[in-house]
């Protein structure tokens, strides 16, 4: 893990391996697809929480906006899949400029409260605009366009397998890019701001600008995930912009751990699989998720990723003569 942390290529390989193995262990491609999509959503949250120490309850805004964007473009305008996803990414990034700019007017608890309030506002905005969002019913029967370039169809994404490969490719690239970002001087500056913002200002950093840029990167990847989710379900429920969605993304992020980006993949798999398995047997399954989160908060501050870290360290220890 330590090696993977320092190398974006290493992380990309790890994500690709997970994507390869995941369908073998899960009952359906649909479930594996969901794991990868939410890993990307948690990745955005990981950047904010892990690198900057910012807890954003507004991640559902970006996720939902991306989903609506793809849904509306595909449903009403027959837009292609690449253009639709690019638009989802761009729209979410733009929203993140506004949300980031507003939320970073304050710090600490007040920043969290601002993201919470903005998230609620966005939910009611979507609820109150059924012409655009379908309101309570959401957007239904969204077509999933095939991958095409210049009028030539390259790949049909109709089968769950083909769509899974498509999502896995995007997910791997997203993790790679995010790893590059946090390894760059920009990423170093985010860590400085997390450690001591006051000092970062005193050595000449416009810390608010950096925070807003981080919000934009987080918003973009989360919006992309939302867009893919719309294509995966062929449906955009209002629940995408619900506060519960923001919570879900935060839970995945914290459960997985924020010391390493890979944690977001682990957190997403844990929550998606757990909710799939448990929701069938027990209606109150979320209690178990809550208990798990409490356990992580109390005893495993680095999340699931740190568990993996320890296992690898122990294996290395054992391998040494």
């Amino acid at each position, binding site marked *: 893990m330590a090696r993977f942390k320092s190398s974006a290529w290493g992380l990309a390989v790890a994500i690709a391996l997970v994507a390869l193995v995941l369908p073998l262990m899960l009952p359906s491609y649909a479930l594996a697809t969901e794991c990868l999509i939410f890993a990307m959503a948690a990745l955005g949250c990981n950047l904010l929480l892990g690198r900057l120490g910012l807890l954003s309850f507004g991640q559902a805004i970006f996720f939902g906006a991306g989903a609506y964007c793809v849904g509306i473009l595909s449903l009403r305008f027959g837009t292609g899949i690449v253009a639709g996803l690019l638009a989802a990414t761009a729209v979410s990034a733009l929203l993140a400029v506004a949300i980031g700019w507003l939320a970073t007017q304050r710090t600490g608890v007040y920043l969290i409260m601002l993201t919470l309030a903005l998230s609620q506002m966005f939910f009611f905005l979507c609820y109150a605009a059924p012409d655009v969002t379908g309101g309570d019913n959401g957007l239904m029967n969204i077509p999933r366009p095939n991958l095409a370039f210049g009028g030539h169809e390259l790949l049909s994404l109709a089968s769950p397998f083909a769509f899974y490969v498509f999502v896995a490719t995007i997910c791997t690239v997203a993790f790679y890019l995010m790893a590059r970002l946090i390894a760059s001087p*920009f990423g170093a500056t985010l860590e400085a701001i997390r450690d001591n913002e006051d000092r970062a*200002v005193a050595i*000449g*950093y416009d810390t608010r600008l950096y925070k807003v840029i981080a919000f934009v990167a987080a918003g973009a990847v989360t919006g992309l995930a939302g867009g893919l989710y719309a294509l995966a379900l062929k449906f955009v429920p209002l629940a995408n912009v619900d506060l519960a969605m923001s919570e879900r993304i935060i839970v995945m992020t914290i459960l997985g751990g924020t010391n390493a980006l890979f944690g977001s993949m682990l957190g997403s798999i844990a929550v998606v699989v757990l909710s799939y398995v448990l929701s069938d047997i027990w209606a109150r399954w979320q209690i178990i998720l809550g208990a798990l989160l409490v356990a992580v908060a109390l005893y495993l501050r680095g999340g699931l990723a740190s568990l993996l870290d320890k296992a690898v360290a122990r294996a290395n220890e054992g391998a040494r003569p």
Partner: protein
Amino acid sequence: MTHSLPATQGPPLAVSGIEKRFDGFQALKGVSFTIEDRGVYAFIGPNGAGKTTLFNCIAGRIRPSAGEVRVAGRDITRLPSHRRVHAGLARSFQITNLFASLSVHENVRLAVQAHSPRRVVNMWRGRDTLTDVGARTDTLLARLMLTDKQAIPAGLLSHGEQRRLEIAMALAGDPRVLLLDEPTSGMGIDDIDIMTGLIAEFGKSMAVVLIEHNVRLVMKISRSITVLHRGAILRSGLPEAIAADPQVRAAYLGAAA
């Protein structure tokens, strides 16, 4: 990486009519002074005289209620702190203020990196691949005698080393004006001697404004001494004249009593 400041006429630092009120309490009552050249300029005064408050107004950490600050002729009164750094104004803190969990090397590297903002937002490079930033970082670490300690977290340095790290970070952008707030506070005698030598050294290439309680140190290296008392300048002049001034002695004794 000596970054090029726009050529300007004015003196390195000119402060005029600075006032600061904290709900009802007047901490600064119209402070004016000009620093015309390089050298070490000391500010002394009893506890609570307003020295740190004056620095905070100059560095932009707090807004003065009235008055004006100019660096090299440029009015910076309304600039946010982070932009004042790029105007050539750097500071260290009375209470140690570092990136405690980051390595000593990274503390300095971040301070140096802040002076190439266009490359900071380049998201496609490794953080250690900016070679000129690395070179400048190494120079500063060597100058402040921190090379041996560069790999450990800043929070684990000894007190004296932390004070030196503060200054290495302040020097990163090769400032015109360096504000040092009690750089020797809490230091042992050996560390104080090292620091005294360093400050005198800095005074050869920039204007150093030094808040210091150690009068012996101040007498040794300052071009002039300014005495701040109850938010106003009581006296300003050559070290010998200040030391002999009866009113200065009274202010200090009055505060001690």
